[in-house]
């Protein structure tokens, strides 16, 4: 295949990929193993790993920006995937989940209960599944890496996030 043919092939492929419909449901970024909240919570407890809960929404502008500009970073993907159990909640979804108190609810009702005002919103949980802190709106690659370090390295046990971030 010469250079021109290869270029043509990739052009056709790109057009085809553009034409393909987006994922049918509001979805987390590609290349990550995001689970439903209840499954992620159970897995976090079983593996004693911290959990990162991502509240998103279909059509969310800032979510789409983060998917394109932040979650595509290979190093961040590697760090988040290895350090956290990842959970995703679509704030407008009727998808059914089971809460720790035994209640069956929907992802939308769960987001409302957590008073999620906008998306994306990220909540970081400890290895004991206790919420540590919440971040709303666009987060840069560097910010996401710093939050990762704060939680995964256990800094949250002896200093506040503000103090930790102030050190850098």
């Amino acid at each position, binding site marked *: 295949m010469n250079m021109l043919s290869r270029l043509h092939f990739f052009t056709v492929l790109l057009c085809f990929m553009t034409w393909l419909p987006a994922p049918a449901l509001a979805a987390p970024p590609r290349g990550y193993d995001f689970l439903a909240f209840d499954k992620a919570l159970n897995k976090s407890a079983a593996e004693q790993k911290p959990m990162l809960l991502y509240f998103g929404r279909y059509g969310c502008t800032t979510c789409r920006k983060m998917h394109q500009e932040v979650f595509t970073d290979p190093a961040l993907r590697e760090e988040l995937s290895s350090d956290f159990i990842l959970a995703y909640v679509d704030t407008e979804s009727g998808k059914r989940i089971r809460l720790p108190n035994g209640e*069956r609810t929907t992802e939308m009702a769960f987001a409302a209960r957590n008073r999620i005002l906008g998306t994306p919103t990220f909540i970081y949980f400890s290895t004991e599944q206790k919420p540590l802190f919440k971040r709303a709106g666009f987060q840069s690659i560097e910010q996401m890496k710093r939050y990762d370090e704060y939680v995964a390295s256990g800094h949250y046990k002896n200093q506040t996030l503000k103090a930790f971030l102030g050190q850098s």
Partner: protein
Amino acid sequence: MKTLTCTLLLGMLIQPAAAGWKFDHKTSIGPAQRPGVFHHLEGAGRKHIAVSDGTIAAIWEDDHSSDPQVFVAIKNPRDQQFSAMQMVSSGEEAYEPAITALGKRRFALAWEQDGAVYMRSFSNGQAGKPLLLSEHSASHVSLASSGEDFYAVWRQQQQRNWRLIVARLKINDTGTLSLLTRHPLEDRQYQHPVLYPSIAANSSGIMLAWEDRESGHTRLKYSFSDDKAGSFSSPQNLNEFFSNRNQYDKGSGVTRVSLAPFGEDEFIAAWMDKRRGGVGYGIYTAIGSEGSFGPNEKAHGEKGDQLPHYNPSTAGNRAGKFAVAWDDFRMGNADVWITTYNEDDEWSEDQSPAVASGSGEQAYPSIALDEHNNLHLIWLQRSSPDAPTRLWYSKGRFD
């Protein structure tokens, strides 16, 4: 001067109380509150209560029998309490029920059961034989009635394709349901989900509204039929949206539309709308007639402007009255709020009924207006976010 001051003071003292809804004491419906039991009022269009010739019927889902199932209870005009609940679903799991009044103290009930949509009639305390409405994987059913006609809409998935299906039905004197017509809203099939349709009917026709995700974000669409669901108009945008911030911006988010008829030929639509930015959903509305809707209007007042609102429910009657209910936590915990048009055809000040506010959470309202302008309200109450729920009813009158 003294006379003028006294006159003003006297005038202030004898000024009539502000107009608003006055609600009776609340009445419990369904299973008693107990650990591990959770009710849900989360059907498409939020139609969980209906009134037929003075008889009130409520429908909900709860898990008091371990699996989620759908239950109904009624309150006849002379009854002080609701009847014992009856389970109307019969599968392994049932969710998201809907109800509409058929006249002569009869009702139609529908719900999702094990991935399909079912319907039953309910009259004289007896549920009719279940009727399977859907042909493929289906959910999100909503019901409406006008005169002798009644209708159902639901979403159906076949492989990767989604459609809204509309059915016209009839009921005979023995309560047996018959399917008269059943066909897709449009010939085309969608590769993105269509969600949470709501349906309303009056003498002018049938209005549908639903969530559409074809444009890369959620938009509300509506369509109208003036030939008893034989054909529907081309879908139009219901919500006004804005998309110019950057290349990722497809428009502001919207979800969970609720429709109701009022007057002879008008409709009210209400939904959750994120156009206000980082303060969560507002409750926005539009009024429609002759097959189309007018401009969007914010229903809640300024006191609720800086926080999110959830679970809008609409109701209207042939006398021309209509109302919108929702819940928000402006007072700390979630409370039910109601608004309607005032004499100037503007949205009145938000009102939280005393029976559906205060300590704990009061949320997920569903409302119906009877022909005497009584507003029938059901909602869920819990003492804290993790506590078991309880289902309540109260009747309000606009004074």
